[in-house]
């Protein structure tokens, strides 16, 4: 278990600079290795931790110099920063081990062995001093304290889509429990793990729970066999129940708006329903039709540009045919209405069909909501919450893999599994080629907490994109 302080890597990594039509200078770093899509920025935004096989590499975000290098006992399955950015948790599920590393004291070590009971998930508590391990088969949740080495157990945790959620201020934890074929919710005080409330929920098969950003309301939803969303107050009272329809497959995704004013529910019937926080009734629903007509929204369609004869990149990539295919430039065109979005009908016999709203994301100012309908996988829909109407539709050439809002501005970054990065803002839409050799395909992305840079993750690679956003607004 050796920990090195890393040697200095070359500073000149800001190689590729592109200026795009958004008038925002984008600066791409060189490509680094990572495994398992484990690449996270610390909560204070200063460090970037990546896992490469069994190594944990910590870099400085702006210079990308390696600051620390830790070696774990096995390939890391999950990695997480503590809330104070001082510690990193590395979990190895097949070995049932969790290792914790300290940034300030590289010599400090901590190893948690779950023994024969196995490990299925591991996470930090909000105070950064406790680790919650979920054992195999969801037999129990073990709470390890790094301050006292004490252990607590939580029995009968439910194995579902989202069984544990911490409130945003880090004071309370809600945990779904399944006991005697009935669903319960346990509310713990994270301070001392005291069980504050324990109440039964009116669900058939609880699928997930989520605190509202203000920490006062807990949204609980049923599995897709029944459309039911329950809203509980912090002290366990049932505030409201919402059920849009019966029998057909129900809720697929749920998201709170950052202001806690709206609760967006995406369902298998390709609609998003918005509930308001005062009456908990539906105020509007957003539909995702295959033919878009009669709307004031802008439809951006990605069109491939033919590779120019005299472009700079050509000489380098003429060697491999594949690279030229991957490196075609593209741009957005505004399509006149009506527009038809390509639909892929899912197999009706399979469970969890690829239909319905699977991803919902609110922008940080709660102004916009981005949605993705699974049977129109190439389209991302952006809705304006002030006007309660469709704002824009982005149609890509390949299926959208991931999209995320800028933590500070109403700017959406998305990727579609190709070598391009797409950005949408109310002023317009831009497609940026990630300038790396060898065709780096962007599978997922994460914004830095300051909104100044993006971490692009490929299959086994990662790349950072720094943005100099001058005060522009087209």
């Amino acid at each position: 278990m050796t920990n090195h302080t890393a040697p200095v890597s070359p500073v000149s990594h800001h190689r590729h600079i592109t200026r795009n039509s958004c008038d925002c200078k984008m600066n791409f770093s060189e490509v680094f290795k990572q495994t398992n899509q484990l690449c996270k920025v610390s909560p204070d935004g200063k460090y970037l931790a990546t896992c490469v096989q069994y190594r944990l590499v910590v870099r400085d975000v702006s210079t990308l110099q390696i600051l620390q290098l830790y070696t774990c006992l096995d390939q890391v399955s999950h990695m997480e920063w503590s809330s104070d950015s001082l510690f990193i948790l590395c979990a190895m599920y097949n070995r049932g081990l969790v290792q914790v590393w300290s940034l300030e004291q590289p010599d400090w070590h901590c190893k948690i062995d779950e023994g024969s009971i196995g490990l299925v998930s591991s996470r930090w508590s909000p105070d950064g001093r406790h680790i919650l391990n979920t054992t195999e088969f969801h037999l129990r949740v073990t709470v390890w304290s790094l301050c006292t080495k004490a252990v607590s157990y939580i029995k009968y945790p439910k194995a579902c889509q989202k069984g544990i959620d911490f409130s945003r201020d880090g004071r309370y934890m809600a945990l779904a429990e399944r006991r005697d074929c009935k669903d319960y919710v346990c509310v713990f005080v994270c301070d001392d793990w005291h069980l504050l409330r324990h109440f039964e929920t009116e669900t058939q098969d609880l699928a997930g729970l989520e605190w509202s950003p203000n920490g006062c309301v807990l949204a609980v939803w049923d599995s897709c066999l029944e459309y039911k969303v329950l809203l509980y107050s912090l002290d366990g009272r049932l505030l409201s129940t919402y059920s849009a329809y019966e029998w057909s497959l129900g809720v697929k995704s749920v998201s709170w708006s950052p202001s806690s004013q709206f609760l967006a529910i995406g369902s298998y019937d390709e609609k998003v329903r918005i509930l308001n926080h005062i009456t908990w009734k539906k105020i509007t629903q957003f539909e995702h039709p295959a033919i878009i007509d009669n709307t004031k929204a802008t439809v951006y369609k990605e069109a491939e540009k033919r590779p120019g004869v005299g472009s700079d990149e050509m000489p380098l990539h003429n060697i491999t045919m594949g690279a030229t295919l991957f490196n075609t430039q593209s741009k957005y065109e505004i399509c006149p209405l009506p527009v038809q979005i390509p639909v892929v009908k899912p197999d009706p016999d399979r469970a969890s069909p690829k239909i319905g709203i699977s991803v919902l994301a609110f922008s940080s100012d709660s102004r916009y909501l981005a949605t993705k309908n699974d049977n129109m996988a190439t389209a991302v829909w952006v809705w304006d919450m002030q006007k309660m109407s469709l704002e824009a539709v982005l149609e890509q050439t390949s299926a959208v893999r991931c999209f995320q809002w800028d933590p500070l501005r109403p700017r959406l970054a998305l990727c579609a599994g190709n070598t391009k990065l797409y950005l949408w803002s109310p002023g317009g839409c831009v497609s940026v080629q990630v300038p790396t050799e060898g065709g780096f395909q962007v599978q997922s992305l994460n914004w830095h907490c300051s909104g100044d840079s993006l971490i692009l993750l490929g299959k086994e690679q990662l790349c950072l994109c720094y943005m100099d956003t001058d005060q522009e607004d087209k």
Partner: protein
Amino acid sequence: MGEWWTTETSMENYEISSISHVTMSPSRRNNLVSMYSFPLSKSSYSVISAFCTEDNIPQCISYINQELASLGLSSTCIEAISPGDTGLSTVPALNAMYELLQIHRRSMCNLEELEREQLRKSSTLEHIQMSNTRLKDQLELSIREKSGLHETERQLQLKIKTLQSCLKTEKDEVQKLQSVIASRASQYSHDAKRKEREAVKLKERLSQLLIDRKDKKLAIDVLNCLGRADGKRRHWKTTKATSSHEDEMYKSLLSDYEASQRSLMLENAELKKVLQQMKKEMMHILSPRQPSTRGATADDSQEQADLDGEAKGGDASRESLDQYCEHAREQLTNSIRQQWRKLRNHVERLDSQGTSQNQLESNKEVIPRETHEDEMERMRCEVQQCREFIHAQQQLLQQQLNTSFDDETAALLNDCYTLEEKERLKEEWRLFEEQKRNFERERKNFTEAAIRLGREKKAFEEDRASWLKNQFLNMTPFTHRRRYSSSDGQSALSISNGKIPGLACFQTKILATLCMNILPRQFLSLRFGNTEVASFAYLHPL
């Protein structure tokens, strides 16, 4: 025939007319029948006997012959036995009579037949008419039946359609439900399989553990314990702690509720303000119109009364006092609704009156429209005039530019000339300035020279004076005066004044006067000024 009868004067009028009546109108069947079918009655006998009398036998005979000829019985001619005799030849008469009887019988037969025919025909006609009407009735009936059947057919068709659509919807719903059932079934089976797999894994693990028995204890291995994130010490878990947790939870809930309530109250107040403003504006819009325009209809007066009532009832102060009172709120919303209704009616009325022909209102509205139109016309005319004016001016300008090319060049040349003059003037001015400067300089030099010259002249005069003095003194026996021959312009006078005694005084006096005579003039001429330069030059011939 008639003419012939008029010659007969012996006939009585009545009999002639009746006979002529009989012969003129053979179609009078009744008369004929009555004439021929019955035995001659007395009246008819009298008529026939009236035809022929003793007197007119030959006329009657000729007449009858004519008639028989006209009937086509040419052969039998009735003759008199002898002319002038009252008897007739019987054979032709009887033949004639027989033929006439035959004719008569034939015609009777014809008549009978015709009558029979006619009867038959009339009966058939009747029959046909009856059947016609019957058929018509039947036709009408069948048409009505047909339309009735059409109607029922249409209704049945409609029913079929609705039933078909119902069937379709039902089928769709059934299909949808089937698909739902299918998806639910697949989801259930998927979940069940997942649970089964998990159970199998559990069983395996359990069996493995039971066999294995070497239980790896769970343990944590930390180098050193960490401090708490917030740096505080760890608290004991006490009931006080739990109750404080409860308190904290309720506090946070309460604060959240308070915050939302505050924002809602603010919103509420805003909306109330907006409503009140709206109400005021609506009242304002409605009220000034009422007395000025339309003739007071009952409706309007009613509205006026309503408005007044409204103004009294909806007191602003009262409303502001109980703002949160349910009653006040209802009152506000009701009054808003009322006002809105009034406004809407008003607008509707305006719309309808815009198209109506009511003189009073149309006048009120047409007059402004008329004046508006007039204004528009006037403005249009003005615009047109201005345009024409501009156009004319442009044309003139164009003309000016086009027609007189010489003028243009002349103007251009003029321009050039003036420019040239200007340039020249500038040049001359510059020269003048230069000369002036030079002049100044020279003058300065001159004055300086003059001053110098003056000084030199003075010096020279003094020298001369001293030299003269010396000469004079040298001419005199007073030799010791040679010592004082140093010439000073100034000292000459002082020497003469102070040092020369006795006779020297006289000499010095002469000298002094000499000097005085010369010097003042010199001094005089040393005055500055342009004019004196010349005079100085004049004084100083050296």
